[in-house]
């Protein structure tokens, strides 16, 4: 479970709630555009220690098949994951 992208973007008087209360975890925009550099996981080198997952401020690294993968929609490319990885399994590549 995590907040996820919704299709409907409330944008009119009718759409919005009467009070400042709305469904939790309602995302309408991605953060992908924030990146200059992009972490790429070398699954050969990854041992699944999960330190990158633990230390990601955006929580975009998730467990997958005993190793990890990245939700690039929300990764901002800070590079903490690369720095924390003792196994050299993450490289930062220039965003194309």
């Amino acid at each position: 479970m995590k907040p996820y992208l919704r299709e409907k973007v409330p944008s009119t008087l009718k759409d919005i709630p009467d009070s400042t209360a709305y469904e939790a975890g309602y995302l309408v925009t991605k953060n992908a555009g924030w990146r200059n550099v992009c972490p790429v996981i070398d699954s050969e080198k990854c041992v699944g220690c999960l330190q990158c997952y633990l230390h990601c401020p955006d929580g975009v690294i998730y467990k997958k098949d005993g190793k990890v993968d990245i939700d690039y929609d929300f990764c901002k490319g800070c590079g903490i994951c690369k720095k924390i990885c003792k196994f050299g399994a993450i490289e930062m590549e220039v965003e194309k």
Partner: protein
Amino acid sequence: MSINARTLNEDEFFYGHKACAGCGGSLAVRIALKVLGERSVAVLPAGCMSAVGFNFPQLCFGNNAIISTFAGTASMLTGIEAGLRAQGIDNFQAVGFAGDGGTADIGIQSLSGAIDRNDDILYICYDNEAYMNTGIQKSSLTPFGAKTTTTPAGKNIRGNLRPKKNMFEIVAAHGIPYAATASIGYLDDFMKKVEKASKIKGTKYIHIIAPCPTGWGTATDETVSIAKEGVDCGLWYLAEYENGEFKLNHKPKEFTDVAEYLKKQSRFRHLNDDDVETIIQSRDSKWDFINKNFNI
């Protein structure tokens, strides 16, 4: 089984937020909520974490969460806890996440009130050592020497002239059931403390250092390592207060170089050798106090 990266709740409760890349505060909030889980109600005052997490219709908290007034984190927690209890709802954790200004300056009155009443709440101060949301102004938790936009470093004054307020011991002086210090450089320690706090009845306070790359002048990938270094060089410490006693959780065998730690941050780049010496001396006197008064 102790809590760690493997055993941690896989759900994400703080996601899609607009914090700066490499934000330490958001890491602290994210990890705490993963420990506390879906039965937590988060209160965040005006400040970075609320500003980046609650921009309708982009709402980034997966659990119940609310923004409080800047001064009112603790009192809103009080009301939430009482309001749920009054309706017969239990098995929840009201948790606050306030920055250093929201905690040690404008929010200290309501925090003190809540501790005094021993309300059953968890208050987490994510300390990035200045008012970062408004663009890096000095708070009472800004350390000696740091340059901020209101403590400029020039010929006459070299940054902040006052030491960091000792919130941990101020909170402990209330006789609070549980207080702890933490650092995002030591997340295992932080997770253990959050988990422990959540099982204690009454008021709990955790003070976690959470570097801000923007305000500290560090690279975005250095947030965690600089936080770790802050502990390793002895300028911050990992400790707990419980049952009227202080306990040190982590004693570095040998401190790493303070000057090295400072040099990596542009907010300290103007400091001269005398300033560094002043900082080292204040560290040493703090550790004399810790060695004398804390259970080690």
